[in-house]
C-alpha cells in the first residue's frame, strides 16, 4: 500500500557519536535509541548540537566517531543518497526551478518509478498534505504554509524508513505554526514513520513528541516523555529550559530537606547529598492561609508586582531570603476577588507532590 509506513518503520540506534570542528567539541559520546515509529524531538538552545546530530543522521556531516544503526544496519559511512531517509529542511529547500509536482516527483524519479505510478503517488501525497490540485503551481506562488506542506510531501512520498525534520515550522507565524504542529502530529499517527524532529521551541517539543531529548553543550541532559520532563526535570538546565521556573535553595541535613528552618514535605525520595534547589513552577504555587496544613508547604512572601494578562495574572513575590518567585493563576472571578496588592504579605503554598529538587550546579 502506498504511503503507509507503519510496517516499514525502523528503530534508530545512535551510539558514541563524537563530532569536533577543529578544537571545538560539538557532540561528545552521544548515545540515543529511537524506537520504531516513535516521534522523538531533539530540543535545545542554539549551539547545543541538535542540528549537527541531525546532519550526521542524514549523512551531510561526517562524525569523528560513533555508530548509527537503522534496523540493525550500520549506516555511519553510507552516502546521503543511499540512506533512504526523508528530510524536511528549515527553509524547505524546495527546488525553485521545478513546479510542485516535479518537486514531489523528484525522489521517485531518482528511484526510476514509472511515470504512471509517479503521478499516482504524487497525487496521493498532495492529497495527504491537503494541497490537491496545486501540482502545476510554481514554488514562488505558494504561501509559507503551502511550501511547508510541499516539503513534507516530498520527504514522505518515497516511503522513507525515517523522517528527519530540522525546525520545519520556525519560519511560519504563530497561529499557522500551532496549526501545523497538530497536523504534523496527526500525519505521524497516520503514517507511523520513525521521526526525529529538531526544535528550540520547548512548547512545540512538548506538544508534538512521544519523547523529548533535551540537549545542552553536545550532551543529552534528559530524555523522557513530555509530561515527565516537565513535572520531574532531572537537572537545573532542563528545569530552566522547559517552562518557567524559580529556583529556591534548600538544605539537606538530618535526613530531611529544609527551607528557612521548615522541613519540606515531599513525595520524592530525599537526595543523598550535595547542594540542591527546589524547582518551583508558577502554576504550582497558590495563595493559602498562613498556617501550614496537610501536605502543603507554606512559603511566606511579599508581593512585588501583579500583572494582568487577560486570561491569567502573574504575581511576582519575594521570599524572606530575598529570592523572587512567580505565581500564575487563571482569572476566575473567585481568584480575581482576592487578588493581592503590591507590598502585601502573603503565604504561597506548594503541594508535597509538586516539590522537585535538582542538583545546584
Amino acid at each position, binding site marked *: 500500500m502506498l504511503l503507509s509506513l507503519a510496517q516499514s518503520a525502523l528503530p534508530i540506534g545512535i551510539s558514541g557519536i563524537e563530532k569536533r570542528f577543529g578544537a571545538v567539541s560539538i557532540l561528545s559520546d552521544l548515545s540515543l535509541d529511537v524506537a520504531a515509529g516513535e516521534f522523538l524531538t531533539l530540543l535545545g538552545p542554539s549551539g547545543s548540537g541538535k542540528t549537527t546530530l541531525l546532519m550526521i543522521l*542524514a*549523512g*551531510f556531516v561526517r562524525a569523528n566517531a560513533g555508530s548509527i544503526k537503522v534496523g540493525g544496519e550500520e549506516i555511519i559511512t553510507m*552516502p*546521503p*543518497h*543511499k*540512506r*533512504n*531517509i*526523508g*528530510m524536511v*529542511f*528549515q*527553509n524547505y*529547500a*524546495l*527546488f*525553485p*526551478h*521545478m*513546479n510542485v509536482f*516535479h518537486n514531489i*516527483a*523528484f*525522489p521517485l*524519479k*531518482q*528511484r526510476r518509478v514509472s511515470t504512471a505510478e509517479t503521478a499516482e503517488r504524487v497525487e496521493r501525497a498532495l492529497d495527504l498534505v491537503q494541497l490537491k490540485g496545486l501540482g*502545476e503551481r*510554481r514554488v514562488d506562488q505558494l504561501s509559507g504554509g503551502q511550501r511547508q506542506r510541499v516539503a513534507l510531501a*516530498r*520527504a514522505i512520498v*518515497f516511503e522513507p524508513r525515517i523522517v528527519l525534520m530540522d525546525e520545519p515550522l520556525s519560519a511560519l507565524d504563530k497561529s499557522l505554526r500551532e496549526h501545523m504542529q497538530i497536523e504534523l502530529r496527526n500525519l505521524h499517527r497516520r503514517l507511523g514513520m520513525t521521526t526525529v524532529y529538531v526544535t528550540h521551541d520547548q512548547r512545540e517539543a512538548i506538544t508534538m513528541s512521544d519523547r523529548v531529548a533535551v540537549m545542552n553543550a553536545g550532551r543529552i541532559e534528559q530524555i523522557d516523555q513530555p509530561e515527565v520532563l516537565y513535572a520531574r526535570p532531572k537537572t537545573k538546565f532542563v528545569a530552566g529550559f522547559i517552562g518557567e521556573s524559580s529556583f529556591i535553595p534548600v538544605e539537606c541535613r538530618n535526613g530531611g530537606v529544609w527551607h528557612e528552618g521548615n522541613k519540606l514535605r515531599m513525595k520524592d525520595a530525599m537526595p543523598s547529598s550535595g547542594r540542591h534547589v527546589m524547582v518551583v513552577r508558577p502554576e504550582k504555587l497558590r495563595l493559602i492561609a498562613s498556617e501550614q496544613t496537610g501536605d502543603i508547604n507554606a512559603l511566606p512572601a511579599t508581593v512585588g508586582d501583579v500583572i494582568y494578562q487577560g486570561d491569567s495574572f502573574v504575581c511576582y513575590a519575594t521570599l524572606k531570603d530575598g529570592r523572587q518567585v512567580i505565581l500564575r493563576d487563571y482569572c476566575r472571578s473567585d481568584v480575581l476577588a482576592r487578588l493581592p496588592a503590591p507590598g502585601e504579605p502573603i503565604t504561597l503554598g506548594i503541594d508535597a507532590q509538586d516539590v522537585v529538587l535538582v542538583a545546584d550546579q
Partner: protein
Amino acid sequence: MSIGSVSLDHVGRPDRALNADKLSADARREARGLFALLSPGLLLVFAVIIVPIGWLFWLSLFDESDQLSAANYARFFEQASYIKTFVTTFKVAFAVTGACVLFGYPLAYMLSQLPRRAAGVCLIFVILPFWTSVLVRTYAWLVILQRKGLVNTWLMDIGVIGQPLPLANNFAGVVIGMTHIMLPFLVLPLYASMKTIDVDCLRAGMNLGASPAATFRQIFFPLSLPGLASGVVIVFVLCLGFFVTPALMGGGKVIMWAMRMEQTTSLYSNWGAGAALGVVLLAVTLALLGLFRWLLGARATGVWSQR
C-alpha cells in the same frame, strides 16, 4: 444619526473631502522636485548617448557625394566582403563565447565551492588581468604563440612537433587572445549566481536519492543557468564589437566588423559607410539582447519541464 449622514456626504463628494486639494497639490510638487533632481542625469544621457547615436544614424543615410541615399545599406547585400566580415564576426563571437563557457564554468564552480577566504584570493587572480591594458596582454599572447614564440619553441625542443603550430596571425590566435580577455566577464556573473544557490537545495537533492553527479545535473546546473546566460550575453555582445585583439592577432586574415569600420573611415574616409556599419552592429546587438531577454525571461518566470 446626523453625524453619520455628514460623514457619508464627504465620501459621496470627493471635492469636499478633507484636505484633498492640498494633498494632491503636495503630491504634484513632490513629483516636480524629484524630476528636477533627475534632470542633470537625463541631460547627460541625452547629450552623450541619444545625440551621437542619432548623428550616426543621420550620417549613414548619405553617400560619398553627400546625397541622401540608401547606398550604404544596400552595400551589405551587394558586396561579398561585407557579408564575409559579418560571418567572420559571428564565427569569432561564437567560438570565443564557447571557449569562455568551457573554461569559465568549471572555474566559477571551483570558486563558488571554495571557502570564503580562498575564493577571495582566487577572485583577485580572475580580476587581475583587468588592471593590465588589453594591448599589452595581446602583445604578450603574440610573444607566446607566434612561429618562434614560447609555445612552439618548447614543443619543438621536447620533440612533440616538428613544424611550428600556426597559433598566431590566424583565427585560432584571435580566439585564444579574446578568450583570455573575455573570461572574467563570464566568470564574475556566473560566480555571483552560483553563490546564491542554496546549499540545502543540493543537500535535499542527495537526501531524496540523487547521487552527487545527478544532483549537480538536475539541481545545481539548472539553477546556475541564469548567471551563465548573463555571462554569455555580455561576452557575446562584447565580442561583436571587439577591435584590438583581432586586429593584432589575426594577422590581417581575420577581419571583424569593428576593423572594417576602422578601414572604412580612416582608409577610405567614407563616414557614411562606416556609420551604416555602426548602425547595423547596434541593431544586431539590440536584437540579440532582446532575444536573450526573451529566452531568459521565459526561463526565470516559467517552470522547466523535467520531461
